C-alpha cells in the first residue's frame, strides 16, 4: 500500500469511527468535551489539555429518543446530536458546549441542559450578533471566560494564558494545512475522491489538532509531489452546512464531479479565519469570531449589499469551478433565508448551480444521483 493510501485510511478510520476515537482518548486518560456547531472556542478545550469532540449529527442513527425533546422543525443535525447524548453514544464525554447561533440551537441548548445536566456539565454559549465593536468583543470575552471557568472545573486545574497562546498556535497551524488540503484536493481530484476529501476534513473534528495537523501535513506533502493530471470531468464548489454521507459523496466520484473548493460550515467556513495576534489570548479568540465573515449564520451590517453571495460567486470563479452545488439542509432557516439572494447573484453572474435538499436521515440518494448526473451533463455542455 502506498503511503498516500495508508494516510487516507487513517483519516477514513477516524472519520467513520468517532466512538473508537473517543474510546482511544479515554484509554489514554484524556477527558473529552463535546462541541456542537457553530464556532465554539474549542481552543480553550485544547488549552485545558482535553479533547474537543465535534458533534455534527450522524449518518448512521435514527431519530427516536430525541423526539421527546425536539420540535419537528429542528434540523436533523441538532436532533441527532441530542439523540446521541440521550442514547449513551456520547457517555464518554466529560461535558458539552452548546453554542446558540441559530433558532434551532437556542432551544436545543435548553433541551440538552434539561435532559443531560445530571449526566455531564452543559456549557452554554451565546455569541453576540454585534460582534465587531468594543462591546461586542467584551461580550464574546465574557462568554468565553465563562466557558474557560467551566472547563477549568472539569479539567481540575487552571487554564493559563500561555496554555491558550499555545492552543492558538496549534489551531492556526492546523488552519494552514486544512486550507492547503482543500486546495490540493481541488488540484488532484484524480487522487482525492470526494469520499476521501470528506473523510480527511471530517477526521479533524475527532482528532486532537496537533496530531491531526501532523498527519495532514504529511498527506499534503504527498499530494503536492503528485504530477499534474488533466481532469476529464467537471469541477464544482459545494455550499451548505454539512455533506458528509459517503453514499452521497460517491455520486460525485461516479460522475467525475471534482470538488475544487467549498463554502461548507462543517469544512472551510470553520477554518478559513485565523486567530489574530493579540497580547491577550482571550481577545485574540474574540477577534477571530469578529473577523468571521460572509457567513449565513452571522450578522452582516451591510447585508443589503449581498456581500456573501458575491463572495460565493467569486469563490466559484477563483477556484476555476464550472458551477456550484448547494446542499440545503432540511429546516435550516438561515440557509433557506439566504438562498434567494445567493441564487440572484449566481444567476446574474451566469454561474450554473443546483440546490439539493438533504438531511441526515436520508439513506437513499436516487433523486440526488439523477440531479447530479444531469448537472454534470449541463456543466459539460457549458
Amino acid at each position, binding site marked *: 500500500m502506498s503511503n498516500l493510501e495508508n494516510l487516507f485510511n487513517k483519516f477514513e478510520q477516524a472519520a467513520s469511527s468517532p466512538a473508537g476515537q473517543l474510546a482511544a482518548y479515554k484509554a489514554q486518560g484524556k477527558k473529552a468535551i463535546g462541541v456542537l456547531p457553530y464556532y465554539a472556542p474549542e481552543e480553550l478545550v485544547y488549552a485545558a489539555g482535553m479533547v474537543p469532540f465535534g458533534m455534527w449529527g450522524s449518518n448512521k442513527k435514527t431519530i427516536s429518543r430525541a423526539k421527546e425533546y425536539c420540535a419537528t422543525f429542528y434540523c436533523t443535525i441538532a436532533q441527532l446530536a441530542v439523540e446521541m447524548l440521550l442514547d449513551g453514544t456520547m457517555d464518554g464525554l466529560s461535558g458539552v458546549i452548546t453554542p446558540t447561533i441559530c433558532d434551532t440551537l437556542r432551544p436545543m441548548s435548553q433541551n440538552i441542559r434539561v435532559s443531560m445536566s445530571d449526566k455531564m456539565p452543559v456549557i452554554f454559549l451565546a455569541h453576540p450578533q454585534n460582534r465587531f465593536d468594543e462591546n461586542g468583543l467584551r461580550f464574546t470575552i465574557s462568554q468565553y471566560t465563562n466557558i474557560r471557568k467551566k472547563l477549568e472545573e472539569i479539567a481540575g486545574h487552571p487554564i493559563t494564558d500561555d496554555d491558550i497562546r499555545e492552543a492558538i498556535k496549534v489551531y492556526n497551524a492546523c488552519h494552514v494545512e486544512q486550507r492547503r488540503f482543500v486546495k490540493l484536493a481541488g488540484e488532484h481530484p484524480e487522487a482525492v475522491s470526494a469520499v476521501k476529501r470528506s473523510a480527511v476534513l471530517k477526521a479533524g473534528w475527532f482528532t486532537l489538532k496537533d496530531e491531526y495537523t501532523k498527519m495532514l501535513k504529511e498527506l499534503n506533502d504527498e499530494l503536492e509531489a503528485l504530477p499534474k493530471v488533466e481532469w476529464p470531468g467537471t469541477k464544482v464548489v459545494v455550499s451548505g452546512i454539512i455533506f458528509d454521507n459517503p453514499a452521497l459523496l460517491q455520486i460525485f466520484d461516479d460522475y467525475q464531479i471534482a470538488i475544487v473548493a467549498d463554502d461548507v460550515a462543517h469544512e472551510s467556513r470553520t477554518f478559513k479565519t485565523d486567530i489574530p495576534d493579540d497580547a491577550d489570548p482571550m481577545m485574540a479568540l474574540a477577534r477571530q469570531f469578529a473577523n468571521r465573515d460572509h457567513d449565513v449564520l452571522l450578522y452582516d451590517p451591510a447585508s443589503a449589499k449581498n456581500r456573501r453571495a458575491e463572495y460565493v460567486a467569486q469563490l466559484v470563479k477563483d477556484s476555476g469551478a464550472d458551477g456550484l452545488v448547494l446542499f440545503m439542509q432540511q429546516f435550516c432557516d438561515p440557509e433557506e433565508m439566504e438562498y434567494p439572494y445567493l441564487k440572484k447573484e449566481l444567476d446574474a453572474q451566469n454561474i450554473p448551480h443546483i440546490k439539493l*435538499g438533504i438531511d441526515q436521515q436520508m439513506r437513499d440518494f*436516487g433523486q440526488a444521483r439523477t440531479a447530479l448526473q444531469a448537472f454534470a451533463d449541463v456543466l459539460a455542455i457549458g
Partner: protein
Amino acid sequence: MHDIYTLGIDVGSTASKCIILKNGTEIAAKSLVDVGAGTSGPHRAIENVLARAGMEEHDIDYTLATGYGRNSLMGLADKQMSELSCHARGAYFLFPQVHTVIDIGGQDVKVMRIENGAMTNFQMNDKCAAGTGRFLDVMARVLEVKVDELGELGAQSTKRVEISSTCTVFAESEVISQLANGSDSRDIIAGIHRSVAHRVTGLARRIGVQDQVVMTGGVAQNQGIVGALQEELGCEIHTSPLTQYNGALGAALFAYQIAKKKAAKQS
C-alpha cells in the same frame, strides 16, 4: 456503412419503456411494460422490443439506459445517462423549436430549459410526491377510478372544486372530505388537475418558461393536466403520441450519436 440500430431503455419508477432506433431517425420498434425499477419490467420490455423488431441483442449497436432504475442494467446497457438529459434530447427530436420541457414522471417532476437542443438548466421537485404521477395514482384510488380515466372524467366537470393542499397525504384527506360532502367526483378530478398544474408551474417559473413548451412523460397523456397547465402558464403546451417513450427515445438518440462516432473511428 451498415445500418445502425440503437436501443434506448427508460426504467422509470412505475413503467419500463424501450425504443429501437434505426440510424437515429426511424423508430424500428417500441415497447412498454407497466412496472418499472426493481421489477421484471425492464427485462420484459427489452425482450418485447427485440421481438417486435425481429432482432437479437447482438443486432443492437449500442444500448443506453436512463430513468430512475438506469443503474440496474449495468450488464445490458453500454452506458447510462440521467433521464433529464434524455428527455431534453427526445423532446428536441420531436419538437425542434422546444425551449422548455416539463416531464411529470411517477415520482419526479422535472422542468428543463433547452437551448439549441442542449439542456442548459433544470429544476426537480423536492423530496415530496405532490404534483407527481404518484399523486394522481393515490387520488385515482380514493376516487375509485383508473388513473388513465382521469383526463376524460375531469373534462366533464361542471363546477369548480378547489383542492388546496399540495401535500399528497393531506390532499387525499381533502378529497375524502369533498366526497363526503357530496361533491361530484368529476369536479374533484378537475380540481386535482389544477392542483398538480399549480405545483408544477411554481417549479417551472424557477427557471423561467420560454416557448415552445413541451410536456413529456406518462402524465402528459392526461389532457386534464395539460389543459390546467396551459391555463396556469398562459401558453400552449405541445405533447406527442410518443410522450411516454420520450426518455427512451432520447436515450436511443444519444446511443446513436455514440455508435456513429464508434463506427466512424472503425472505418
